[in-house]
């Protein structure tokens, strides 16, 4: 075990994957010698050479298309999109190409070795284009896996699983936690399962569901509810947005009868809507109160009023109390 922050854990995962398998490559804007604007690919070019870790011209659709081609040949490209806000120029390559590659060819070809890594999320005064959480856009796309880790241990284990997955993965990294989240991480290779949620705190009164950087926030809200009102929250980290672990959430809600979902992205069309509809359908007779969604407002991510915009612990706490008192 070693103490690592999230960036170190990601860097360590990439290092291990490249050492283990010659077909793993890292590329993107400023990923090469400089090691990435967040330093996630630090020292990888020095270690593995310019052909396996390199800068690309500044073109997201080019990065995605290049990665698709490389993966179709059998390589395992880990392509970085500098901010998730800039993944949209690559949307066509990802949604129409990456996601449908295996299906449309009848499994003659696939891009299963492919991973897109991209920093997402707010809380860093990033305004419109350095704060977005676009997971719901991709959750609507069969063929992709979408993953969000919450801490360094998760980040390493899930990224290694993503690289090893036979399906293409979008790996959203909570950049607010890149240096803020520090924890014990095994130095050896390990994987965490894709498509599995994790119950991080057991509880009996209410199920509280989130992912990525919001896990800290919902924990804070749960602590507050426990201390002030004696409410026992069961906290679940969804970890995989697509495919998502319906069973774990259903099991929890059948026990607690209440569900509060929190995410950074805007409410309308956000992934909480999908979860709420599914749980409502599967747990209808067990629900004691309406499913609550604590999300961003339906506005572009604002700069000056970021604090007001965020689905913070106080808004989450209020939703917990509302749900309990319904």
């Amino acid at each position, binding site marked *: 075990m070693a103490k690592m922050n999230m960036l170190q854990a990601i860097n360590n995962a990439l290092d291990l994957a490249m050492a283990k398998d010659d077909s793993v490559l890292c590329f993107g804007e400023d990923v090469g010698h400089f090691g990435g604007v967040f330093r996630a690919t630090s020292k990888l070019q020095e270690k593995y050479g310019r052909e396996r870790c390199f800068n690309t011209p500044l073109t997201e659709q080019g990065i995605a*298309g290049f990665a698709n081609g490389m993966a179709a040949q059998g390589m395992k490209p880990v392509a970085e999109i500098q901010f998730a806000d800039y993944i949209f120029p690559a949307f066509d390559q990802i949604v129409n190409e990456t996601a449908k590659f295996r*299906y449309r060819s009848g499994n003659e070809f696939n891009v299963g070795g492919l991973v897109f890594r991209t920093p997402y999320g707010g809380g860093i005064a990033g305004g419109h284009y350095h704060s977005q959480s676009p997971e719901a856009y991709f959750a609507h796309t069969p063929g992709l896996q979408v993953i969000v880790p919450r801490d360094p241990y998760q980040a390493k284990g899930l990224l290694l699983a993503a690289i090893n997955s036979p399906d293409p993965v979008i790996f959203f990294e909570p950049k607010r936690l890149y240096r803020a989240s520090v924890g014990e991480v095994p130095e050896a290779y390990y994987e965490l399962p894709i498509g599995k949620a994790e119950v991080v705190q057991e509880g009996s009164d209410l199920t509280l569901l989130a992912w990525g950087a919001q896990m800290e926030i919902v924990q804070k809200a749960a602590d507050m509810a426990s201390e002030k009102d004696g409410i026992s929250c069961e906290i679940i980290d969804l970890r995989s947005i697509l495919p998502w672990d319906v*069973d774990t959430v259903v099991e929890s809600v059948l026990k607690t009868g209440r569900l509060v979902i929190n995410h950074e992205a805007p409410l309308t069309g956000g992934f909480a809507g999908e979860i709420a509809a599914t749980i409502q359908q599967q747990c209808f007779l067990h629900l004691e109160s309406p499913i609550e969604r604590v999300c961003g407002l339906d506005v572009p991510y604002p700069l000056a009023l970021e604090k007001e915009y965020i689905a913070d612990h106080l808004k989450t706490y209020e939703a917990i109390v509302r749900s309990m008192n319904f």
Partner: protein
Amino acid sequence: MTNPNNATNTTVHSAEFISGHALSIPTLRLLKDDGTLYDGAQEPELDKATALKMYDTMVFTRVLDERMLAAQRQGRISFYMQCLGEEAAIVGSAAALDDKDMIMAQYREQGALRYRGFSLEQFMNQLFSNEKDLGKGRQMPVHYGSKDIYYMTVSSPLGTQIPQASGYAYAQRLRGLSNVTLCYFGEGAASEGDFHAGLNMAAVHKAPVLFFCRNNGYAISTPANEQFVGDGIACRGVGYGIKTMRVDGADILAVYQATKMAREQALASNEPILLESMAYRLGAHSSSDDPSGYRSKEEEDEWRKNDPISRFRLWLINKGWLDDAADTEQTSQLRQEILDALKVAEKVAKPGIEHMITDVYAEPTQQLQQQLNELKAHIKKYPDAYPVTAGRID
């Protein structure tokens, strides 16, 4: 050059623009309409067997196109696209490749599949989206693909295969393979952002990819002069620092020679090469298009004289490699074979319902399995509404 701008250091001291038309790129043409060579033109090295295979492939493509367009008109298949007028560009370039060079096509390149050995049955199975289709009946007709013959499955979004070809070729180089990737696209697709991305990525990262642009004058109804004002597509290659050649796409000898050279140079120096083939889309864009709404009969007739097949045919006859009467006989035989294969393929069953959920992922997810189960139960309840699958559910 050491300056950080990676641009020429020369300076001038009077203001003057470089003309947008400073580059004008000539067209390589070896073969005249009468099947003889131009003065000074060098015949490419081509043995009789290869030349006849190229000719047979062109004829196959044309006969298949005629027959299947008719089949679409009869409502037997849902959609079709012809290669009419561009057979030399496709077959000439495909013939210049190694069998294991990857081909990434747009959708009008059936000649390349045929040249690689895609069988008549495989064409038919794809066109009829039956259970023997390699693509499991999931995509529209003419979206062919086959791993065995190194032909990447076609997709409808235009230009997406261009940066993919760059990535594929980069991977071929890293693996130490002596193979290139050839990427076909039309002049309309070259307006997509992916064209820019793909060419620049390949140039910067030294990927041995041959970009083969079919400039056939039209993107559906849009003539090339509403697509761009520069000197075609070729001039852009130079802007990316890519070696470029323009060829007469109705001259199979010119296309063959240019592609052969391009392949050798791309492999020798790990660099991309751009070829622009000038031909004319003699047919409609697709079975859903009627070109009489946007171009004249006179224009079409003028280009019809420039038929790539008859030009190559005359060359073969001049060489004594092709017998006129035998050729005519063979073509009518081919018509019959295609009709027979069509009749077989249209009777083959559609893919089983389970193929709705396979290959979305390497393994179907639990949710997909559940959706399939619900669908099966529904079909069992309303069998008359789903006649293709109702009788085949366990």
